[in-house]
């Protein structure tokens, strides 16, 4: 039991270091056990060092850096023990354009083994999808599904923005 935890931990730790560096386009990350002699109760410490920066406390990282670090950890876990499908609700909210591009590339890669259902407001994420559904509330308070193409969605949101 403890040994399986140790093996699982080492595997994820190795992947996390790789995925982090790819997602950030540089930098380093690591996972450490807070209590290596007590595998049944030890916590796991996350060390993240974005490119060009010194390793520092997670709390000092920016909102977008934290989101990307958390996503990198999730993807590291998925590489070790893939799950058939993954539902992500607006995990891209805090990311800038460059990080969003790297994320969509990762999703494309992972989607060969894992099915993704992604709720998003971000255009780049929509461009990376195979299929897109729109949810609207034409009738007050009642959700309705509409099929939507990216060009129509862009046009519609632009006209909403302009027309008010």
């Amino acid at each position, binding site marked *: *039991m403890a040994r*399986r*935890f140790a093996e*699982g*931990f080492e*595997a*994820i730790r190795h992947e996390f270091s790789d995925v982090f560096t790819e997602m950030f386009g540089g930098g380093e990350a690591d996972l450490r056990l*807070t209590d290596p002699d007590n595998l049944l109760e*030890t*916590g*796991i*410490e*996350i060390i993240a060092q974005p490119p060009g920066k010194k390793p520092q406390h997670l709390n000092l990282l920016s909102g977008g850096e*934290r*989101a990307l*670090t*958390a*996503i990198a*950890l*999730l993807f590291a*876990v998925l590489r*070790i*023990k893939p*799950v*058939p*499908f*993954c*539902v992500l*609700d*607006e*995990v891209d909210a*805090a990311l800038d354009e460059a990080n969003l591009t790297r994320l969509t590339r990762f*999703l494309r890669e992972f*989607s060969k083994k894992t*099915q*993704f*259902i*992604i*709720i*998003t407001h971000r255009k780049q*994420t*929509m461009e*990376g*999808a*195979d*299929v*897109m*559904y*729109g*949810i*609207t*509330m034409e*009738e*007050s*308070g*009642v*959700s*309705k599904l509409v099929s*939507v193409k990216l060009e129509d*969605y862009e046009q519609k949101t632009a006209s909403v923005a302009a027309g008010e």
Partner: protein
Amino acid sequence: MHLKRLEMIGFKSFADRTELGFVPGITAVVGPNGSGKSNVTDGIRWVLGEQSAKSLRGSKMEDVIFNGSESRKPVGYCEVSLTLDNTDQHLKLDYSEVRITRRVYRSGEGQYFINNQPCRLKDITELFMDTGIGKEAYSMIGQGRIDDILSGKSEDRRAIFEEVA
């Protein structure tokens, strides 16, 4: 294994019967604020056996039943079905297609079905145990929840690692 489709009726803001078909790759769900996108996620969690009203943003389990709007009356029950392609036998069931159904009435009475056969909630949760399916922070990340894994105590993170071990 992958999801084939989600069917909802009376679930939260989905008063009318709605069917979403999924593709093996990436499905994006988009729309205005408050249109019902996160409710789709809640629907998936709920049909997989979620028992905490709080995880579904409610205060009691009855909150998942469409409770009316300016234009509509509340309804008396809700039902969600999730159909999965099980050709690779990832789920320990002798079916190539598995359809999970959950229904609840305002009385609180709940009904559960696997391929239209009545079963207990326990049968559904045990079916998905150890697959990682439906687990927050592993196969599902809720809105605003991406930061949780970083902001929690280092001991709280064990859950994902133990899931893999």
